[in-house]
């Protein structure tokens, strides 16, 4: 997390006068004062811990039990499902899958989306093509297309990651491109053009650092959307049938007809999704506010 927050300092950090704190430090100081942002960060860190330590926190929910559709109790704190499996274990192991999909899909989408955006912004001739493709892709009905691809290719974790990433990058490109377009016209980029003929160097050294804050926000937003999309696919029965995910718990609850009577089957995975997406959103908002000097208190 500290790495993410330190990132915007790269650009022009050397020129800042000594009495002024470096931008990253100022951002961090401002961020620390916002309780919501700090709470969101702690919650996200806790969820990452749950994902990593799932085998220590719960047994793998494979075995069928005698106690079918029991309400939450001391033995099963989140109750049991229609095959007698412990819902707590399912939710804990589902955290793993959600985190994996969110992180991998958003990484692919960000890497590809940023590359397209920055290259498009730097080479103006490509930009017209890029913007048309992005606009057209954004007008496609995303979830139905994800359903189409996931169903034809066959449900697996890899498929879901690729599908979610494939339909998430245009949004990244749209946001990063807007920022990159203003950056490439700034005098320091012109100055850099006088110093080197290598566009790769200028993009890596000067354009990318300037769009990093937008990327940071974009990572969080894309990851939380990926969680929702993956849960949507799993809810429709297109998730990986061998791995537990929050969407799969909901899907199986609906399939068994127990969704309406056994409230715990819906409540706990729903809360897990809500907590993850909400804390990611709050983190992005707080970071954005902290980064903006006009909104900083004191």
């Amino acid at each position: 997390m500290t790495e993410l927050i330190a990132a915007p300092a790269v650009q022009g950090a050397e020129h800042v006068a000594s009495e002024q704190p470096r931008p990253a430090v100022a951002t961090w100081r401002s961020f620390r004062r916002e309780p919501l942002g700090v709470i969101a960060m702690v919650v996200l860190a806790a969820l990452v811990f749950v994902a990593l330590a799932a085998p220590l926190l719960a047994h793998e929910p494979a075995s069928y039990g005698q106690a079918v559709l029991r309400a939450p109790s001391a033995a099963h704190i989140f109750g049991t499902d229609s095959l007698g499996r412990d819902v707590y274990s399912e939710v804990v192991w589902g955290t793993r899958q959600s985190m994996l999909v969110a992180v991998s899909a958003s990484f692919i989408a960000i890497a590809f989306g940023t590359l397209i955006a920055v290259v498009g912004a730097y080479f103006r001739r490509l930009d017209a093509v890029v913007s048309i493709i992005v606009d057209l892709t954004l007008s496609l009905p995303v979830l139905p297309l994800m359903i189409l691809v996931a169903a034809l290719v066959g449900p697996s974790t890899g498929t879901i990651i690729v599908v979610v990433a494939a339909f998430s990058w245009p949004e990244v490109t749209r946001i990063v491109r807007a920022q990159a377009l203003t950056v490439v016209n700034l005098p320091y980029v012109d100055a850099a053009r006088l110093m080197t003929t290598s566009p790769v160097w200028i993009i890596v050294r000067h354009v990318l650092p300037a769009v990093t804050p937008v990327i940071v926000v974009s990572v969080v937003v894309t990851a939380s959307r990926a969680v929702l999309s993956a849960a949507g696919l799993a809810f429709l029965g297109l998730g990986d049938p061998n791995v537990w995910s929050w969407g799969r718990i909901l899907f199986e609850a609906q399939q068994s007809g127990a969704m309406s009577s056994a409230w715990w089957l819906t409540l706990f995975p729903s809360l897990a999704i809500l907590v993850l997406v909400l804390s990611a959103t709050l983190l992005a908002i707080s970071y954005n506010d902290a980064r903006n000097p006009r909104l900083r208190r004191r």
Partner: protein
Amino acid sequence: MSRLLFVLRRAGRALLTIWFAVTVTFVLLRVLPGDPAQAVASTTMTASMRAALLTQYGLDKPVIVQYGLYLWQMVHGNLGISFTQSIPVMQVLAARLPWTLLLTLTALVLTVAVGIPLGVVAATSQGRFLDRLVQVVGVTGQSIFVPSIGVLLLFVFGLMLHWLPIGGAYSDGSYGGAWYLSVGQHLVLPALSLMLVQLGSYVLTMRSTLIDALGEDYTVLARANGLPYRRVLWKHALRNALLPTTTLIGLQLGFLVGGAVLTETVFAYPGIGRGIYEAVTQLDYPVLQGAFLLLAVTVVVANMVTDIIYGYLDPRVKTA
């Protein structure tokens, strides 16, 4: 002249969008695993029966020819025959489209009708408790998984209170006024779920743009001229703040359609989103192609409507 050019460019863009959606669907269906021939003709058939069926559906021709023929037929309003139901795709979709349009339009109208006033309330009480509350509700709403809110509503209003039906789109065996009433009753919960997950974006956008607009020089000037605050707020600031919110409708359409698929699944609503899901599992390619075409057309039409509203709100774009 420039006006005509503007309209022509918009129309060209609309056609390009529709063509793109149709082509992406066609290519995905042909490139990805899953053989349309398999869906029409089972491998246990005799070779001649199989060949006859494939010829009937045009699947014996090369893919590029199929694509050309498909586009040609589409321009003439013929979307082909459903693989599984053996009736024209148009008929399959015509039975489903009205339900999806009813559901999404109701949700959209509700969202705008509730979201804009809430945004105004938040912006005018900026920093106070009411503003904080609206913001928290907005951000939370954005983070909710559509089926979660659907099941919650279904559980509370359908199963516990028995106020509203829990699934379907109408009651069987009712006619006339009773039928319309049942349609209305079946619509409440799905539309409400779809509204609640969308509301946040509209409220938050409305709030931040209105706060910006209230800080602009022209609102300060209007106030300095002695205009009452309410008039400045509703006539001057709000009109400008509505522009980004109008743009948001266009941006959120894809999301709305996705939400509709999930909502229709939770409430067993016989709409096009559920139809797409069923067509995918049955490999019914003509229905899928038709459904995506319809969705693309809907998005294009909605974007045009948004453009018209935009031009009405901001006369500058009409001449630009």
